[in-house]
């Protein structure tokens, strides 16, 4: 069994001993990530906070069973996924099914590329990506475009891109939290990133056209 991260071991001992200060510190450190992850499965800030409350109670109740096969943070994020997913299933009975739909469209519009039988440039760009306007990506508008694009992704893609790119988990941590294979995780991440980039491209094209 891998050795516990030393800070994890110290924290775990403090939590098990009922150290409220250690608990508050962990809550402050992990809550932003936990809330973000909960929002993949449930709608609304209030329900996300309830989900967090429930997840922490599961964490406290399971502390004695934590074996340190992953970091404490990854283990807790995995619990958030399970609790939030169960809540979301409940909620989704009254939600449009589009957000749960699977995704089998091509990742990039095939018309962006020349056909495989093209005499000179098979499989090359037909419509090449244009450079983005300088500093456009740093704007609040771009942040909003990204949020909307992420919100429209199928749920598992949203979970993967949230963990990998927004929260900053490794591939391995993401696979553990979501119970996905490494290959599947990567395919879902790639689809999600590709769609977010495409949404930005479209928004920047429109901005340029208006300017």
């Amino acid at each position, binding site marked *: 069994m891998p050795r516990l991260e030393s800070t994890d071991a110290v924290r775990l001992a403090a939590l098990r001993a*009922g150290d*409220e200060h250690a*608990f*508050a510190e962990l*809550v*402050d450190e992990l*809550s*932003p*990530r936990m*809330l*973000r992850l909960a*929002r993949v499965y449930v709608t609304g*800030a209030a329900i*996300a*906070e309830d989900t*967090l*409350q429930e997840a*922490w*109670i599961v964490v*406290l*109740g399971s502390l004695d069973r934590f074996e340190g096969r992953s970091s404490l943070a990854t283990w807790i994020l995995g619990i958030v996924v399970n609790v939030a997913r169960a809540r979301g299933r409940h909620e989704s009975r009254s939600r449009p099914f589009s957000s749960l739909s699977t995704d089998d469209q091509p*990742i*990039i519009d095939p018309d962006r*590329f020349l056909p495989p039988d093209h005499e000179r440039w*098979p*499989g*090359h*760009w037909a419509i*090449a*990506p*244009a*450079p*983005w306007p300088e500093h456009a*990506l*740093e704007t609040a508008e*771009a*942040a909003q475009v*990204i*949020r909307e694009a*992420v919100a429209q992704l199928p749920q598992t893609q949203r979970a993967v*891109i949230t963990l990998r*790119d*927004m929260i*900053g988990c490794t*591939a391995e941590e993401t696979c553990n939290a979501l119970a996905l294979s*490494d290959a599947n995780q*990567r395919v879902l*991440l*790639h689809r999600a*990133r*590709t769609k*977010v*980039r495409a949404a*930005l*491209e479209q928004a920047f094209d429109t901005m340029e056209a208006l300017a």
Partner: protein
Amino acid sequence: MNEMDCKELVEAITAYLDGTLPAADRRRFNTHLENCPYCTEYLAQMRKTIARLGTLDESTLSHDARERLLVAFRDWRTG
């Protein structure tokens, strides 16, 4: 080994960035990139997109929700 085209390259980017592309494909990827300004631009845009995803505003726990958690912790401790 056949050359990598643009269509194949864009699909391999996440594996490339994760370092999980097989060595032969990694070489094909790099060779294509050296000769293709469009894919170089596309890859740069993917990297920028990924970086920007990590800098969006975070959600924070409300004061009330934090207090409720601390109460839950005390309840658990006295179990």
